[in-house]
């Protein structure tokens, strides 16, 4: 069967399979819809946490919190990732998509499953949080929806692998697959592990909710569930790092400093990231310290090493490209003269910086076996993952959208001024959410908690005053982030449905200087002093903050 029809992209010269294009569009649109819904739930959660506002009643708060996690952490991100997988395989490799009909089946299953789980939450029968730890039980269609979604996503991964095989067979590209496709392949491999783990635990849990199985061990559930729950975050990391490379390439013609190093870093993800389930089990009974230490550190921090490498090679490749283009003065001319008014760049660079400083450092610190005692289940945890999944992944996806709309949807960006400020406002808000939740968590405030004043309790307790301030600042940051999110939705909807059709070639890159860099010449001539300084600052912050937390730990009661 070779019924595929192609168009040739006037800007990049890539051959685009129209079936793949439709699937990319459908998945991206579904993603954005769930982002809008989940974002609103998130705002209502933050406004309830702000003691002076305390927006929702308790039952609605816990319901909104469950729906927020489901809609943004699972649906928004995975739908967008499926779009990226189709793009990185079919589009970047000039290939037809394998089994496009199956792609629609996968899309239908994901959409149906996502809606089913949402319905069960909104019916009020499944206020179990995104994690649904037994013995807490949701309505059976909560689990069924998740299973359908996971199987659909698994099918989509299969289509991605199939497309790679087709492209290789039909010789649609020369040599090795591009780095971005390699990163997407990393994501897809981790996704198979992740979704299989999800099926292994959710199918028995579903049978349990139907009364067919009598008992689910809560500890075993957590171990397997987090093999899905945490490893799926590593899909996000692989995809958003790929997007960083893609945007650097599209805007600057940036070439990876070393293909070997960047690919090696992705390989470290495949080999070690799935050990991360342990991060959620560090203060559980029944597991040995040896198991915890080995797993929580991804076998001596080898997956962290991968991220730290990307943290240098991504800005390094931009710096090298910019210097080639003539921005060669001092340490930072390349960065100062970067296209800060282009939301694809500003979003990508903010994502890179905040993922490293906020999400990355805090994640490694809280994943230290003993330090987890002073952090587990406090607001520090959502503070951390809003640094990774929102400031990192979501912002990178938003940045990518500003390139996908002209290239795939073939529409001009509507409201360019709104688009220009969007990453800054969203980034500022999310940075605040992350920092202030971590601050409240350091003060001990519990996550998933409706009333930090304990007004209805038989006993008296209140968190310190500073925690109230942190939650107020968190509420304000959430308003900023939600406004930034709304601007994104307005720009996307405006452009996709009412944007002017793109005709001919468009300019992606900043205009000055020679546009593309074919090669950097010999390795001696490569200069990235600005990146070295940035990485040095990051490393210093990392080391300091790490040992500060050991100091905090040493102040609590001795225990063994």
């Amino acid at each position, binding site marked *: 069967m070779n019924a595929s029809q192609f168009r040739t992209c006037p800007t990049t010269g890539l051959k685009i399979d129209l079936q793949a294009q439709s699937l990319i569009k459908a998945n991206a649109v579904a993603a954005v819809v769930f982002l809008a819904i989940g974002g609103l739930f998130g705002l209502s959660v933050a406004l309830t946490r702000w003691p002076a506002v305390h927006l929702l009643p308790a039952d609605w708060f816990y319901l909104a919190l469950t729906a927020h996690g489901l809609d943004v952490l699972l649906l928004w991100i995975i739908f967008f990732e499926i779009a990226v997988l189709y793009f990185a395989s079919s589009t970047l490799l000039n290939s037809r998509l394998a089994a496009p009909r199956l792609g629609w089946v996968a899309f239908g299953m994901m959409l149906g499953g996502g809606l089913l789980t949402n319905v069960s939450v909104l019916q009020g029968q499944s206020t179990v949080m995104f994690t649904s730890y037994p013995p807490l039980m949701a309505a059976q269609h909560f689990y069924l929806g998740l299973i359908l979604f996971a199987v659909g996503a698994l099918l989509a991964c299969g289509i991605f692998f199939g497309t790679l095989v087709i492209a290789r067979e039909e010789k649609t590209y020369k040599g090795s697959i591009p780095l971005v496709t390699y990163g997407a392949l990393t994501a897809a491999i981790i996704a198979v592990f992740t979704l299989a783990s999800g099926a292994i635990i959710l199918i028995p849990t579903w049978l349990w909710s139907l009364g067919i199985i009598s008992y689910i061990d809560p500890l075993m559930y957590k171990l397997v569930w987090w093999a899905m729950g945490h490893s799926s975050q590593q899909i996000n990391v692989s995809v958003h790092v790929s997007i960083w490379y893609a945007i650097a390439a599209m805007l600057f013609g940036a070439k990876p400093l070393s293909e070997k190093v960047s690919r090696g870093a992705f390989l470290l993800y495949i080999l070690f990231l799935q050990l991360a389930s342990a991060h959620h089990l560090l203060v559980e009974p029944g597991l040995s310290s040896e198991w915890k230490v080995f797993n929580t550190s991804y076998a001596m*921090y080898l997956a962290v090493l991968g991220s730290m490498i990307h943290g240098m090679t991504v800005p390094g490749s931009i710096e090298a490209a910019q210097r080639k283009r003539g921005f060669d003065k001092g340490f930072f001319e390349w960065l100062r003269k970067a296209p800060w008014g282009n939301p694809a760049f500003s979003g990508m660079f903010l994502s890179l910086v905040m993922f490293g400083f906020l999400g990355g450092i805090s994640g490694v610190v809280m994943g230290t076996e003993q330090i987890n005692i002073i952090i587990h289940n406090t607001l520090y945890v959502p503070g951390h993952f809003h640094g990774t999944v929102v400031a990192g992944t979501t912002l990178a996806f938003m940045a990518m959208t500003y390139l996908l709309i002209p290239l795939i949807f073939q529409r001009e960006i509507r409201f360019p001024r709104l688009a220009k400020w969007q990453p800054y406002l969203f980034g500022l808000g999310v940075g605040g959410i992350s920092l202030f939740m971590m601050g409240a968590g350091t003060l001990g405030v519990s996550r998933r908690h409706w009333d930090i004043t304990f007004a209805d309790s038989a006993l008296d307790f209140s968190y310190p005053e500073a925690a109230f301030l942190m939650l107020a600042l968190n509420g304000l940051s959430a308003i900023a982030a939600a406004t930034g999110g709304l601007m994104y939705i307005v720009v996307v909807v405006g452009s996709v449905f009412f944007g002017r059709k793109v005709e001919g070639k468009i300019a992606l890159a900043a205009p000055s200087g020679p546009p593309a860099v074919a090669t950097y010449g010999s390795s001696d001539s490569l200069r990235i002093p600005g990146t070295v300084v940035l990485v040095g600052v990051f490393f210093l912050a990392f080391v300091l903050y790490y040992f500060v937390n050991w100091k905090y730990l040493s102040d609590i009661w001795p225990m063994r």
Partner: protein
Amino acid sequence: MAISPPTERLWWKTPIHRPELIWIIVAFLWGLVMFFMMIYWHAFGQQNLSTETYRTTPNAFYAKTEAMVQQYRVRDLNGLPVVRPPAGGDVYMIGRMWLWYPALELQKDQTYRLHLSALDLQHGFSLQPININVQVHPGYEHVLTVTPDQAGEFSIVCNEYCGLGHHTMLGKIFVVDGPGVTP
């Protein structure tokens, strides 16, 4: 470019640039430091979470806790028994919807074996303002060996969602210096 196949066909044979190589070495060594820091703390640090765990049932754990309450109850706090077990001994605490039961009165600088389990759902033992957080599972009895080294009133928050009354769930540990108050 990262969106097209590598320009060098034998990309795995190209040399690694010096800044990249140095950073890889530094980052790898830092990973080792962080890894061995956890092991060092097991040997020399004072704060390590116990791994002593037993299978139990809600009924069995409740019976043991109730026996302790009957034997060592010293007073009540808003209807919640306050128990002062002997220093150095076993103390029990139940997490259930939506209370930590019973309240404890411990002596400063004495070591206790604190048994934790849940009767219904998972709960989160979160001792404030000191900020010690341990997950509590039904069916598992987790024994922490703790030495309170500060006197005062400490509250236990539940930091794992356990139903609609979750945010009302509290408990108390009083740490007294010397013989303590037994009104």
